[in-house]
């Protein structure tokens, strides 16, 4: 029994001339929550679709739970769960009917199915709404229903494609609690997101940009491996200062956060604090701060995250 849930080598997908995913090497250990972090159109969904067997890769090798894809996609299906980006259950069926439908599709029948559905309704707090049409649910409820449906057959591997894009922060926290429960129970989870706070919850993550992997590792590893120092400057005329700083070759990025300017300074500058105060003068306060995942994202992609949107 291998300890690796997903392994790809040179996974590539081209749609005509445009390359959606380019030479992706991934290794996802069993039992971990693995994140795909990247802006829209970076190849997250395409990668997930290749890993679930929905898309045939143009080249490269893919092995998921020991099955070779795309050849053995059919055997894999019983063991994976997939929560699509768009709500993919039936709006004009009730919650209960949707779950009953999914359970039959997975070949679960009779008592076992109704027990499992009852358990899921309780777990995802949907018991009172079970006779409500799925189309009339709120974003958070729909998402919980989709998760319930995707995990109904207790898959070993769960794919979640931007699961929280239509959900408020309160529900998002709750949702992640459920994911940790699943992970605790041994389910491997691959989740794509463009939220930094979500990415930070993952055990490991890969940063994707333009179909290529820019970095991967645990959030802490990624932050430690950054070749930059993070400093924050406060003082007058920050808009002006920002432009001035961006002209410095050693400054990788400058972004304003309220009354502070966050600067990423290359490691080549050994004493960035001193260097900056020399540049800016005494009117400015300079402080070295803890790096965040957004800084990792910026340094590994070379572009500010927000500028992608």
């Amino acid at each position: 029994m291998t300890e690796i849930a997903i392994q790809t080598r040179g996974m590539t997908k081209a749609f005509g001339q445009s390359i959606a995913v380019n030479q992706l090497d991934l290794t996802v250990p069993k039992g971990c929550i693995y994140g795909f972090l990247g802006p829209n159109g970076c190849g997250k969904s395409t990668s997930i679709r290749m890993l679930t067997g929905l898309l045939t890769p143009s080249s490269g090798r893919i092995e998921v739970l020991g099955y070779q894809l795309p050849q053995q996609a059919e055997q894999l299906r019983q063991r994976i769960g997939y929560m699509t980006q768009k709500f993919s259950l039936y709006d004009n069926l009730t919650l209960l009917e949707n779950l009953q439908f999914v359970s039959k599709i997975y070949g679960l029948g009779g008592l076992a199915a109704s027990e499992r559905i009852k358990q899921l309704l309780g777990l995802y707090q949907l018991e009172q709404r079970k006779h409500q049409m799925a189309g009339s649910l709120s974003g958070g409820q729909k998402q919980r229903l989709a998760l319930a449906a995707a995990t109904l057959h207790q898959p070993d591997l769960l794919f979640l494609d931007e699961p929280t894009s239509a959900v408020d922060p309160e529900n998002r926290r709750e949702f992640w609690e459920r994911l940790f429960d699943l992970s605790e129970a041994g389910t491997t989870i691959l989740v794509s997101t463009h939220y930094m706070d979500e990415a930070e919850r993952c055990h490991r993550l890969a940063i994707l940009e333009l179909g290529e992997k820019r970095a991967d590792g645990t959030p802490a590893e990624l932050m430690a491996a950054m070749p930059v120092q993070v400093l924050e400057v406060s003082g007058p005329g920050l808009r002006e200062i920002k432009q001035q700083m961006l002209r410095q070759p050693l400054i990788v990025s400058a972004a304003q956060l309220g009354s502070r300017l966050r600067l990423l300074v290359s490691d080549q500058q050994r004493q960035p604090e001193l260097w900056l105060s020399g540049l800016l003068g005494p009117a400015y306060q300079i402080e070295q701060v803890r790096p965040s995942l957004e800084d990792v994202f910026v340094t590994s992609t070379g572009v500010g995250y927000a500028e992608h949107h």
Partner: protein
Amino acid sequence: MQSIIRISAIIFKELKQLSRDRITFAMVVMIPLVQLLLFGYAINTDVRYLPAAYVDLSQTASSRQLLDRIRATQVVNFVTHYDSMTVAEQAITEGKVSAVLYLPADLELRLLQLHQAAAKTQARPAGHWVVDGSDPMISSAVRGLRLMPLQEESKTITKTAVSFEVVSYFNPEQRTAVNIVPGLIAVILTMTMILFTSAAIVREREQGNMEFLITTPIKPLELMLGKIVPYILVGFIQMLIILALGHLLFDVPFAADLLSLFIITFLFICASLALGLLISTKAQTQLQAMQMTVFVLLPSILLSGFMFPFAAMPEPAQWLAELLPATHYVRMIRAVVLREAHWFDLGFDSLCLLLFSLIALSIATARFKKRLD
């Protein structure tokens, strides 16, 4: 076993969704109902009361008497009269009238000659008809007036011997509705069956359900069968509505051999549904599915023998029509409903439909990939 559970899951879901989609559900009943009333009453090949005019240059008692006699045939309805043929021809061009009767000034003389010469030949006709011949059905109706007896007593004189006697079986009163109503089942089933199934699959793709469904262990054939079965029921309901109403309203005989009726209809429904599935594997949106349905529907109405006699078409068109399930069904349903045929008498058409269903279903299943690319 698992297969049966999965197929029944799809069937159940499909029926539930159908029962909640009020407009579609209403259409299941309303399409046959409204179309039957509309076509049953409206389509009539027995031409009556054509708008016509006359140009009467003789202005005599005999001419007025003659006009009355023509009116009494109910073929034409004289809506107006003109003073000269030039004006009358203009009226035909403008579409005001379909036919003009010209009675010359020497009408009485001609009538007299006709009367005397009846047994002989070479007599000049009493007048002549000018007809808008662009519609052959109208001109042949007027042509039927050519040999109209001119006077009560002349019947005895002009009566010619009949070469053949015609005995009309199955529809002795020659009512169009008797022929139209069974054929209408073919047209309505073609439309609803193809459209429902093609839309049923394409809709799942459009609304994103398919992406989830194809990551589950369901097999393409299971999905196809699950999608077909509910609509077989719908098809039977529509057939019964049409036949029952056709019987009540238009006195169309109800099939004596119910088993045959169900067998041939089942075959036709399967063929249409399989075609719908085939369309669904090609169409990306419901609109495209609709367009492809119309592409099949129009020839099914015009070439299947529903509207025009099949035998009247040139041979290549007949071959083409044989490819349409509707052609075979129109032939069979008329045989079963009107001629009390047994389905076993209709081996060729049954076999065609069966083959069509199997081929279409296999292609659709093979083409349906559990993939997005």
